[in-house]
């Protein structure tokens, strides 16, 4: 069994479920210690950012961009309003970790956002939460109320002259609003569509002001990194892959759950923690980082460790840390058709390749699935996916294309079988 579980974002997990999320619980694990230190000592933000860089914390929202580096792009001392925005939209299929941070440790996110605000010169923060998260939203709002009441948020905090206000903003059911610039549009009250970059949010973000956007888990990691030191965090994982990470293990496993384990934990250990493959079946494939990343055959996965670099070597991406387990007997055409439908449904529609291409992919895949495929369809799918990837305004295009290309790469024979025989090679699911 993996040691060192639940050391960062889940550090309240051992507390009683009923009170786990409260301010008192959080204080009992040393919570808000770092925020109070910042308010009392007013350290040079640059030293805090250095600590983050040392920790090798990489963005937990999917792209894995180093968080310390991102913060250093902000024109911290330039005049004018700046914003810190937390991305709790958590729309990536398979991902459900941010939900549990909001449910079980909301104060740590608040503390992380406040410290982030201090580091980048933002006095206002927004937490953009997926609208379907009724319970987590309530938990977070409750925590906000407690933090304000305790004088940890608001104006001139602890007499330091530092201000920080934090607001909740709810999504309305669009996956695309998890993309950081679409999220900003959505907060501004506009149609959630990604912006063309440059300019990047650090130059012109929310309401045109410099803005940093981070994932819930990234921000919630910050207080512990500052408490225990960047080196400690780095040591939890591997070089360039600092810290533990939350993995949402779902799909054909016996005990789906979120696990906070060190980066570099072997996949097989994680699979064991989730109770192994359902019904004792063999492992067929894994989508290791949320539905947008390439699929990896099971045998490769069993020899891969769960960190950014190792998964990249295995031909995929760590993404958001959503590990979708697929058991032997599953029809891969069906899996892909399902994913393709998702991306076609969630494309924002503004740019041509994604608007038109995702629907095309989905239609062809469903045609194949229903026994009306043609041999030429497979090259068509691969080619159409290639014409979407890398040519769109945001990464949703890539996210839609990558599964198609990887499924065809590893499971082409299943598609061919279905086209030839009009029924799937694998019937069970």
């Amino acid at each position, binding site marked *: 069994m993996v040691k060192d579980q639940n050391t960062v974002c889940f550090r309240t997990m051992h507390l009683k479920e009923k009170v786990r999320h409260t301010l008192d619980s959080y204080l009992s694990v040393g919570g808000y210690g770092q925020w109070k230190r910042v308010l009392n000592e007013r350290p040079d933000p640059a030293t805090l950012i250095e600590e983050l860089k040392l920790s090798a914390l990489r963005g937990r929202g999917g792209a894995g961009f180093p968080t310390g580096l991102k913060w250093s792009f902000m024109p911290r001392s330039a005049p004018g309003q700046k914003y810190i925005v937390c991305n709790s939209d958590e729309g990536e299929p398979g991902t459900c970790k941010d939900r549990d941070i909001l449910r079980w440790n909301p104060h740590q996110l608040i503390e992380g956002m406040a410290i982030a605000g201090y580091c980048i010169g933002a006095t206002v923060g927004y937490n953009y939460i997926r609208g379907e998260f009724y319970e987590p939203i309530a938990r977070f709002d409750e925590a906000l109320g407690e933090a304000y009441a305790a004088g940890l948020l608001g104006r001139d905090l602890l007499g330091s002259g530092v201000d920080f206000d934090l607001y909740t903003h709810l999504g309305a059911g669009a996956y695309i609003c998890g993309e950081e610039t679409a999220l900003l549009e959505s907060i501004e009250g506009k149609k959630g569509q990604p912006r063309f970059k440059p300019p990047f949010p650090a130059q012109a973000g929310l309401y045109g002001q410099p803005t940093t956007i981070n994932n819930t888990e990234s921000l919630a990691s910050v207080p512990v990194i500052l408490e225990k030191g960047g080196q400690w965090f780095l040591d939890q994982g591997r070089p360039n892959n600092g810290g533990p990470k939350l993995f949402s293990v779902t799909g054909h496993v016996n005990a789906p759950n979120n696990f906070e384990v060190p980066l570099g934990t072997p996949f097989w250990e994680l699979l064991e923690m989730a109770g192994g493959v359902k019904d004792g079946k063999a492992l067929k494939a894994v989508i290791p980082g949320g539905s947008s990343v390439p699929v990896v055959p099971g045998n490769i996965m069993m020899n891969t460790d769960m960190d950014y670099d190792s998964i990249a070597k295995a031909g995929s991406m760590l993404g958001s840390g959503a590990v979708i387990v697929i058991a032997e007997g599953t029809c891969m055409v069906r899996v892909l058709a399902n994913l393709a439908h998702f991306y*076609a449904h969630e494309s*924002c*529609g*503004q*740019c041509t390749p*994604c608007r*038109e291409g995702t*629907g095309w992919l989905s239609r062809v895949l469903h045609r194949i699935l229903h026994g009306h495929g043609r041999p030429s369809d497979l090259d068509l799918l691969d080619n159409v996916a290639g*014409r979407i990837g890398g040519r769109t305004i945001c990464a949703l295009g890539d996210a839609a294309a990558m599964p198609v290309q990887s499924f065809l790469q590893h499971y082409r024979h299943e598609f061919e079988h279905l086209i030839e025989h009009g029924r799937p090679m694998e019937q069970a699911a």
Partner: protein
Amino acid sequence: MSDKITIEIDGRTCEAAPGEMIITVADREGISIPRFCYHEKLSIAANCRMCLVEAEQGGRPFPKPVPACATPVGDGMKVQTRSRKALDAQRGTMEFLLINHPLDCPICDQGGECELQDVSMGYGEDVSRFTERKRVVKDEDLGPLIATEMTRCIHCTRCVRFGAEIAGVRELGATGRGEDMRIGTFVAHTVAHELSGNIIDLCPVGALTSKPYRFTARAWELTAEPSIAPHDAVGSNIQLHVRNGRVMRVHPRDNEAINETWISDRDRFSYEGLNAASRLTAPMIKGDSGWAETDWQSVLHWVADGLQRVVADSGADQLGWLMAPGSTLEELYLGQKLLRGLGGRNIDSRLRQQDFSGDAADPALPWLGLPIADLEQQRAVLLIGSDIRQEQPLLAHRLRKAALAGAMVGLVNPYRVELTHPSRQLPAAPGRLAAELAAIAKAAGAGGRSSLKGLIATADSGDVHAEIAAALKQAGADGNGLVLLGALAEASPDFGLLKALAYQIADATGCRIGFLPPAANSTGAAFAGALPHRLPGARAVDVPGLDALAQLTEPRKAYVLWGIDPAHDLIDPARAVAALAGADLVVACTAFRTPSLEAVADVLLPISAFAETSGTFVNAAGDWQRFQGAVAPPGDARPGWKLLRVLGNMLELTGFEYASARDIHDALAAQCADRAPDNTPRAEYPVGTTAEAADGTLMRVGNVPIYAVDALVRAAPALQRTPLSAPLHLQLHPADAEALGLQDGDQVEVAQGPARACMPVHVSDDLARGGGRIPAAVPGSGQLGAQIGPIRVAKVSGENDQ
């Protein structure tokens, strides 16, 4: 620009400014990059992905193809627009754009001038790989001007960005996601902005097309004739698209200094009026048994004899001569020449003015005061009596740009105007406009002489007045402040006083002063001498003739009306009709038959309308713009200048031997060679008392709605069906309505002196208290009196009343 950088596109070295987009540099170099969403005048959306190119910077290739429209150049950048990678990206986009687009160009109105069709010739495949079902999108009714076939939409969002950025009203937007993204109005309203027709040009495909034009011709059947738009003082450059001697549609012609790439809907759709059933196609004479057609030869002799008889019997001073300010320069010049040749003096083209007390003080050649494009650079503008969006749509657009760049726009007007930018508005009933101006003048520290001084000193200056004055002062000090007088100031019985105050404000703040000339050739009329107190070249006359109003209040024995419908084109229709009806001879030279003309005229002479004659317009900025006739006038109608030439010859007047309109232009131009527009007043404005409404009366505010300004627009059916063409009604302030016991929708009888008309009441607090807004120049308004003047309102008890 000092810091030029060098980039390479397709192996060609190009100079560029840092920060420019690749596509801008390529366009300048004549290297064509396909595009759909990009448009010079709109923000960059980078959504169509048609312009993808390959690029490298500092020897490092960009990992993905980049959109040329949204990628700024850097020194040493190398761009490939036609490499294998670039072409594959462009072809990929093309394929995506076509999969759901109907491939039925032969039945699409855009066919032959479709950007998608054109680009697909270069980047599309012969056979589609798409075998799924195509998308079908429901159409929306956008009103009488714009037809939709939304299945053809390629989601470039040009139309959406036009609304948000240029029009300032988000009439269209995108709803839905992915394949279900739709361009529409959200709530199914008519697209009514006065510039909205431009989205027809912007739409690269056949999704948005011209409703009046569609399916009537093919692009390749049309010849494009350059012309100048005739309905306002902008002088927008246009193209008349002609087939078989008929104007089929009107498009803008680029002119950055004047209309940029836009035209107003009025200029775009008014051509429909050319083919109206009310066109006069033969000379007509009124006999005992009514109107009868006649021939030119005999009718002109009859007219010449008639005019000579009046001169012989009663003196040339008994001739009244009124010319529409939208007539060509050549017509105006010959018209005044003919009258003055007969010894007459009473000529005017200022048909919507009633206070001429400022004639002696007025600048000789009033104008906008600055080039049109410079409006954008103003930092503070005070508009006096102007519904500028309706009067001069494209000048309003320039002001909007100034306002969005931070300029203060103040407005003193009888009603609140729906501007699409921040503004400081001081709505005041017509009799109170002067008081508001005096308050601004006072806040600006203006003094003034004699009674003006008293008016300013006793004015009640509030915060808004002070704010406007301060902004004007600051802008004035930097040389970019402007005070502008519009059509409602001109129609005011206090026009002289308003001008006096406007000049006081301009002086005290260091701002420039400008006039918004009401028609396409109002400025030209001053050059041509079509005024009672000015000869050609704006030279002074010894004894001024009667102005437009005096010709009616002191009725003449004979009148010549040029391009005028008495019920709609004169400031006081009731009085005009009475005066004309009592005359011995009324000669109407007109392109349209109208009931009021038929009632008062003795002969109707058919003259060319816009597009049917060559001529010249001088716009608000003093630009002389010549144009050629593009189509022949209908039936026996003739260009106006030819009619005047023949009549001049028949009357044996000298100086009517012109062979062409060009000769007439040249003759006048020679007399104007040393003349330029200039707003310096020639004397102090006399200050009378203000026209306050008497007890129990309201002051009528008779604005001319955008689609009522002239006969051609009034005869254009599609424009008449838009929401901007509201039927006759009385708008009242809620407090006034309450005092009169009136409610929204009540029927009232409005009395203006002896004149009467019935209409419904609209209650709105846009209108200042004490005003009663009744549009002029719309059906039914011809029975009423002065555009601005006292009215009495009485409820008509209808069937619904107990």
